[in-house]
């Protein structure tokens, strides 16, 4: 038992020792880039029946690995462990639908420009054909209670909000015809529209509002790797890689990716 304790203390110390070497060097030496991605967020990162994690973010990770000339290893992460994994050094890079928040920028090193952006949108019944948010005045939208944007949207566009818990209940209410659309994260709406069940009767005619960009992240202090990733991101925008990925996985290209492509093209 004593040996066990001493052993575990030694383990803890070994873990606490700071990794001095540059991550990019380590990756090249190891021959593998380890990237943390989501495995439960269709189409950004999800499993296929063989168990492989596929989607937009795994594709982007594969592109980075290709540029570095190394193999790719994907580690599925969830919101509660992704930052720990990165700081432990278990993963070299995080591309996991992580929204840009000031407190996150303190605990990890964010890559600018942000590679993607979520926004707020409406999963609308096909019978309703509104292409301007202003046209929604007086109409009823279902929503998830607790979403930070419910109040803003209601005040700004004069929309009636019917809020429900979680995301299943508002979807159900939408099907029952209690509202003309479901106000929620655009990436979620796009994911729903991949499903035959929703594709037939619903669409997303409005532009996204209230953009919340997603960041790639590396460990604090890895400035060299961050710089390389920034350049890679700009290169993606230049080549329209992100838009291509969106089309490949069957979602409507977001305003953000189209705008970034056009901005960096010229």
């Amino acid at each position: 038992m004593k040996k066990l304790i001493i052993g575990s203390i030694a383990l803890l110390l070994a873990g606490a020792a700071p990794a001095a070497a540059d991550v990019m060097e380590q990756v090249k030496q190891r021959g593998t880039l380890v990237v943390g991605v989501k495995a439960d967020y269709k189409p950004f990162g999800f499993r296929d029946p063989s168990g492989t994690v596929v989607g937009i973010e795994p594709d982007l990770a594969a592109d980075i690995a290709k540029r570095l000339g190394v193999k790719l290893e994907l580690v599925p992460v969830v919101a509660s462990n992704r930052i720990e994994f990165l700081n432990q050094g278990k993963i070299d890079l995080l591309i996991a639908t992580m929204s840009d928040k000031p407190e996150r920028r303190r605990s990890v090193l964010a890559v600018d420009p942000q590679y993607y952006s979520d926004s707020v949108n409406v999963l609308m019944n096909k019978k309703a054909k509104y292409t301007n948010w202003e046209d929604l005045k007086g109409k009823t939208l279902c929503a998830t209670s607790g979403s930070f944007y419910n109040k803003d949207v209601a005040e700004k566009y004069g929309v009636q909000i019917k809020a429900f818990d979680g995301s299943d209940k508002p979807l159900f209410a939408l099907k029952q015809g209690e509202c003309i659309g479901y106000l929620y994260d655009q990436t979620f709406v796009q994911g729903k529209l991949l499903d035959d069940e929703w594709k037939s009767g619903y669409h997303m005619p409005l532009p996204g509002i209230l953009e919340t960009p997603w960041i790639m992240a590396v460990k604090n202090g890895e400035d060299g790797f961050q710089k390389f990733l920034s350049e890679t991101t700009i290169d993606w925008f230049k080549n329209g890689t992100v838009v291509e990925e969106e089309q490949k996985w069957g979602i409507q290209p977001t305003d953000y990716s189209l705008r970034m492509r056009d901005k960096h093209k010229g």
Partner: protein
Amino acid sequence: MTPERDPPFRPMAVLLPLRPREPEPLPRVTTRHGLLFVTAVLLIATVAHAQAPDAPAAAPAAEALTQAPATALTVIIKWLPLLMKGFLFNILISVLAMALGTVAGLMLGLAQISQHRWLRQFAWVTTQFFRNAPWLVLLFFAMFMIPYQFTVFGYVIPFPDWVKAIIGFGLPVMANVAELLRGAIRSIPNGQWEAAESLAFSRNKTLWLIILPQCVKRMLPPWMNLYSLITMATVMANLVGVSEMLTLTAEVHAAEGGRPELLAPLYGFAMLCFFIYCWPIDRATQYLERRFHVKT
């Protein structure tokens, strides 16, 4: 003078011989109960499926396999290999955690009856600590405190998540096994120690040749019970991101578009897997308990 009335009739008190009262038979779980449970699960799943909004009509069986309009059954069949891989992972974690915990627990349990005061006290504190800490907290501790790899003499030894999960689950097993052993040793009548001493057995010999062999059969049923509990607890590893069955179930649900009507069948399937695995263990435990029933 009032006529004397007869005293009310009383049966003559007879002192019956003292007879120990028969214990009330407890209801016993039989195979029928298990089948009942399985039926109930299927029934609930069916009802949930039927109530789900706009559940697509079940396609004819032949068509279901070819174009798969994603009824609950086709979804489960499609993802079966992956889900089973996850379930095997749960079993692997539980078996190894149990092995690790048992070895460490036996040492700890023996330390608890050691003649060195400090060792005894240290073992006692360790046991109490790990026995009374929530399993999930120990799991988090193991996950986030142990590094993902460590270097010994220049060799990099990776320490993947599942190894950490094994340690996380091994700790409570260790403490519980230590208590089982201590209890089993305590339950052996003192006379045996004394008899052994009078036959010039040393303390070590008494322990290894006389006491511990008898402990095995006393410990076996509760030990199997503990294993069953640990197996069912392994799904907690999904909270720390180990790709075990529950994590995969959630991911499969997401990959199938997160439709609410799939929720009950998918998680019901996970429950069924665990039930089918744990239930025979429970039956065997009951059998052994009856067989090894120790009369004191």
